[in-house]
């Protein structure tokens, strides 16, 4: 599904190198967790995957199902099946959530040469998916993320994820700003989407989220490199001992 090879990336504006040779492979259906202390490059990795222009890739490649995505625009990557669940979903006043969802779904369909969805089918689909996440239709009539609570924003991200049906979900600190109830709802939403054809890259600072979304593999990102990989027991180890000894080992 995903192959990141010797990826180097820097901040376009000031040239600060953040990613310094990331290597990572995620198989079909795999849930891979990326953990790491603050400032290790976790969010940068997610933005580089999604194609944010603030970052420049200087070396290496990202292969998605064997094809490099580095030359693709953010919307082309989305249409290809890569979804980024934002750590801080932006509020966009004046764009009703329903209109946004329709524009997103139909843009992706169009890009893939599929027919646009008819309004009644669209509403039915959204209603079904929203119900599962405890999102009311009233909330969807409001402007996108505007005035939503932290939990509502994250649920709205998962709703988009389920509607857009991506192949690879990159989840950037989805647990930040969530209380335990909201965390459960969001995790259940993600678990319901797990399947043999869909992979996840779950980026998190804490092990807490991984109790709910149990990963197949765990990777530690530190100073722009993966310094250790393992299975879910690695996350538990980090929870108990902190990052210090893993960092010490790698040094």
């Amino acid at each position, binding site marked *: 599904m995903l192959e990141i090879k010797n990826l180097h990336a820097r901040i376009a504006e000031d040239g600060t190198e953040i990613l310094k040779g990331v290597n990572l492979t995620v198989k079909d259906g795999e849930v891979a967790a990326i953990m790491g202390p603050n400032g290790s490059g976790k969010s940068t990795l997610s933005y580089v995957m*999604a194609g944010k222009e603030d970052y420049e890739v200087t070396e290496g490649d990202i292969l998605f199902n064997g094809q490099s995505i580095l030359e693709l625009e953010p919307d082309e990557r989305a249409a290809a099946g890569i979804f980024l669940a934002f750590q801080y979903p*932006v509020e966009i006043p*004046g*764009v009703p959530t329903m209109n946004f969802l329709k*524009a*997103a779904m139909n843009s992706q369909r169009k890009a893939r040469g599929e027919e646009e969805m008819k309004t009644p089918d669209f509403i039915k689909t959204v209603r079904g998916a929203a119900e599962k996440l405890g999102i009311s239709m009233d909330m969807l009539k409001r402007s996108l993320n505007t005035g939503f609570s932290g939990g509502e924003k994250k649920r709205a991200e998962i709703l988009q994820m389920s509607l857009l049906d991506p192949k690879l979900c990159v989840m950037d600190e989805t647990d930040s700003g969530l209380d335990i109830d909201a965390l459960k709802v969001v995790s259940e939403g993600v678990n319901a989407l797990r399947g043999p054809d869909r992979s996840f890259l779950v980026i998190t600072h804490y092990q807490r989220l991984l109790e709910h979304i149990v990963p197949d593999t765990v990777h530690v990102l530190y100073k722009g490199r993966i310094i250790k990989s393992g299975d879910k027991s690695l996350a538990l180890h980090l929870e108990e001992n902190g990052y210090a000894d893993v960092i010490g080992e790698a040094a």
Partner: protein
Amino acid sequence: MNTHPNITLTAGETALVEALGASANPAAAVTAEKIRARGLPTRRVEPWHYTDLRSLLKAFPGVEGEWGAQVDLPQLIDSFVITFANGSHVEGELANLPEGISGTASNSDMAPPEGVVIEADTIGDINRALSANGVSLTVADRAKVAKPVSLVHLAAGGASQVLTHQVVVGEDAEAVFLDRNHSSVEENHQNIVTNLAVGRNAKVTWLVDQELDTATDRLAQLNVHLAEGADLQLLILNAGGRLVRQEVHVAVRGAGANLDIKGVNLIGKDAHIDVTTTLAHEEPETTSTETFRNVALADGNGVFQGQIRVARIAQKTDARMACNTLLLSDAADFSAKPELEIFADDVQCAHGATVTDIEEDHLFYLRARGIPEREARALLVKAFVEEVFEDLDYEALSEVLTTRIENWLDRNG
């Protein structure tokens, strides 16, 4: 009298003086002499600082232009339509006005309503000198006029259209007026002054909507008097024209009166659009809000001047003004000038003006969901301006105005 010009007149001034010379109205001679002596206002005249009329008024076509061309008027909402074509009343028998409202052809009393004071009143001077037509409408006390009344002004074939309207809304009455302006491709000119008096506890929605062609100039004035408890929602949509100056002068003269102005200026190629408002709060406990959203593209030029005066006795005034602009090109320009003159001590006045570009984070979010850049930008521009016309007092207008804005952005964006 000095018969020699004191200054060299521009082509626009020369044409205007000629038109004034052809009028038998004594006021025309006075205005002509003023222009011969000093010219039209330049940026040195404070209220015209951002709209140098002398250099911007390129032409003033003859007052009696031929009416021939077809002018497309976009459908808005069902209404009783009174149409003026090049200044002649061509549609809408005043005898058939909706119940509760009566009308006559007007020309008698053309002074602004009581309490309205206008500095450097060039628009009014030209209007008083050349106005040949207009309507006088009266809404009876307590009448709730169900059907909106449209005042449609069409200019075509290269003509000037100078009109004066008088509208008086009685106590406890309710009415909706749509002031609509369209023109043909030739060089046309509009000078339209409307005097509106809103009676005690009356409620009025007034829309000024122009989508003039790109060679039409428009100088317009809406002069308003609000009585005790009167409530006016004024909507302004500027979506065309070459030189456009829309003045709004309001005397808030009754306690408890409320004024809400919502405006959208869509400023395209070669357009200069100026909205100038002066609000005088002269009684205690009155409120006003002004919300403008502007989009300027290509070499479009926009101006907003908002003056709020609060008299010494007008305690508990609550006046708020906001003007936000999206500049979509480097050559586009917008000037905003808020001006507060407050003589009372217990008031709330706020003003804010911003000029921005589309937020990159918003754009990235939409693109990360698969929406191509061009489409994502269009969505954000629409969202920025359309917000103004959400939840209007007269609900039916929200959707049609939104559609008008979308169509304009699709064509010009």
